[in-house]
């Protein structure tokens, strides 16, 4: 397993070690479920259930390890939007109960309820957060880094004063940081407003879709169906906006403004570290860049050396072959020489024999002579 994740990441050892506790928690929820059956059928029924769930979660969550907590917390957070829909549509249904369901008056109730939902959305940070979670922009940054900026903001009153004296440079850098932070907050605010508008627009899309469904005689039979419709409408409105150049430009500005702030304060931090003779990020980057360059050069050198080694090896083999073949040639030449000497000797002896034979044949002319030409 890697060093990045603990395994299993929803480690449940704590459960096994506390079976009674878990049992108690289950009993608590079972008791709550039974209790709610005696509650009056009104919208007030949802809030207590939400409170009960919240209370259960508040009791349970401290026992969970970090990653278990994160996972279950996600579910709890998403549950909130489910409760929100439940609460809002419960009111709507109570409203429509009071009017003639077959007349067009239900649409009046629907419109009123959606107006209420829009205003609830505008006031609900949790609901807006679903829209305004800007990717690439770490939530931790907002929580942790901004504490530093809060401190700096306290000295904002000094920012219009030009820097002077021996601390002039530091003052100017702080002022620049405050300026950059101001720019980021401005764009961030703009981003949140736009995204909230998209959220409101999604509700309008949903209202129209419900009316269209009524016209097509389609039915909605559960809160889950309502929730799914809400998700679809939100995705639709969001996707339409994200596809625009306006969003692309705004997102770019937001990211760039945030990075400008982070980079500025990173440089300030480096300056402080440098004064303390401690390692800086700038210095580390220089080393890493140099190191990677050296590694790349080394890899290329190794590749070249390997290629050269192969070439040398091939050349050596060639030389060996040449040597072998030349030694074979010289041996065969010597052998050839020996052979030819023998042949010459044979030839001479044959010629001599021939001469002898000729002489003898000349002597006895009646005999036929067969001359073999060598």
């Amino acid at each position, binding site marked *: 397993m890697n060093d990045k994740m603990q395994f299993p990441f*929803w480690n449940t050892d704590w459960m096994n070690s506390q079976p009674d506790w878990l049992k108690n928690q289950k009993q608590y929820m079972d008791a709550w479920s039974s209790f709610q059956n005696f509650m009056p059928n*009104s919208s007030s029924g949802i809030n207590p259930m939400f409170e009960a769930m919240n209370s259960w979660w508040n009791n349970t969550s401290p026992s969970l390890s970090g990653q278990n907590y994160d996972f279950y917390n996600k579910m709890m957070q998403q549950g909130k939007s489910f409760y929100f829909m439940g609460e809002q549509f419960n009111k709507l249904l109570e409203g429509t109960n009071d009017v003639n369901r077959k007349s067009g008056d239900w649409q009046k109730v629907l419109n009123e309820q959606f107006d209420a939902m829009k205003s609830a959305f505008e006031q609900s940070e949790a609901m807006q957060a679903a829209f305004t979670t800007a990717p690439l922009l770490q939530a931790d940054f907002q929580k942790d880094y901004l504490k530093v900026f809060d401190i700096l903001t306290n000295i904002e009153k000094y920012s219009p004063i030009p820097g002077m004296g021996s601390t002039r440079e530091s003052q100017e850098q702080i002022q620049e940081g405050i300026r950059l932070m101001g720019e980021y907050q401005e764009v961030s605010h703009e981003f949140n407003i736009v995204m909230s508008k998209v959220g409101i627009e999604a509700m309008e899309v949903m209202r129209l879709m419900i009316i269209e469904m009524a016209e097509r005689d389609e039915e909605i039979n559960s809160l889950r169906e309502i929730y799914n419709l809400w998700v679809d409408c939100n995705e639709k409105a969001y996707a339409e906006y994200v596809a625009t150049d306006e969003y692309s430009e705004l997102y770019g500005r937001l990211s760039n403004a945030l990075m400008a702030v982070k980079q500025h304060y990173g440089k300030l931090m480096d300056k402080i570290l440098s004064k303390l003779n401690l390692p800086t990020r700038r210095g580390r980057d220089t080393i890493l860049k140099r190191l990677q360059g050296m590694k790349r050069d080394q890899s290329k050198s190794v590749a070249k050396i390997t290629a050269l080694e192969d070439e040398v090896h091939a050349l050596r083999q060639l030389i060996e072959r040449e040597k072998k073949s030349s030694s074979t040639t010289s041996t065969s030449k010597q052998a050839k020489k020996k052979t030819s000497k023998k042949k010459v000797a044979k030839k001479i002896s044959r010629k001599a024999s021939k001469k002898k034979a000729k002489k003898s044949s000349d002597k006895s002319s009646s005999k036929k002579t067969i001359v073999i030409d060598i």
Partner: protein
Amino acid sequence: LTPFQLRPDEIIQEISEFNTKLAHGLNTLGEIGELEDGISPKDIVYTEDKMTLYHYKARVKKQNPVPLLIVYALVNRPYMADLQEGRSMVQGLLDAGIDVYLVDWGYPDEGDRYITLEDYINGYIDNCVDKIRDAHGIDKINLLGICQGGTFSLCYTALHQEKIKNIITTVTPVDFHTKNDLLSKMVRHVDIDLLVDTEGNILGEDMNSTYLSLKPFQLMGQKYVDLVNILDDTEKMRNFMRMERWIFDSPDQVGETFREFTKQFYQENGLVKGKVKIGDDTVDLENITIPIMNIYAKDDHLVPPDSSKALGGCVSSKDYTELEFPGGHIGIYVSGKAQQMIPPAVGKWLDDRT
């Protein structure tokens, strides 16, 4: 007539059930147990820095003589291709008689900050290809790229085609400026130099939130509300957790590579324009003449089909095959439907060209 065919008390009942299931669900988490990092047996055959080259053990007798190297993306982890029994692309390929190797990039840290595209493509991938060629005593191997790994594979093939016999790309972005490419639009105006100079490596969680933000209500909301319905089913929860774990198991992105990739590919759309630089080399997809199989997902929200299909118009290959999978970006690797369709098709396509 109002479409609402439910009473207020039914809504309260539904919420009450939701609460109960949610509370009881904690118990199920305790029953899930450990999850594997991929299921198919494999050997480590080569390592370099944080990269590991795996060789999977054969599952059938009949083997295609040309081995296949799977090049995974830098985002998320490659065990997605071998997630669980019956839902493993690797297993499917092995069953199709393919000799499978896989590149795992590991988890880069700050020390890797200056690794570039050249290091990845002309370094790590090339070294893996050479190792496999040497091991099998052959000149050419087959390449299969997954998502960004497909883009890397195309760059590699354009530069080192003499080492590749056939290439398969799966959900691979080629044209980064198609109409529905939300990811591309999102980064269009981001100052990437400022981002990388400030952040160094890009955190995996930031990459994740970017992907999730493309469909935030479904991926960050509805998914968890739906999960409540299966909280009492240990097996279904185990499957969910496998995926959930994979989704959030995101290595950080090496700063310099992120800079080069985002600027050259996403912002400048350099791959289709023949302008991407890998070290001193320029990638020209027209150089690719070998057989290509291009697999894309019809409902892919991360790599729109048009982005992948653009490949056909960029290469010189006369043997170009497209295969559309009726699903999404992840489903193409993990759905049961994909297992029936993709590995056998790849196996046959490769067999026909061996």
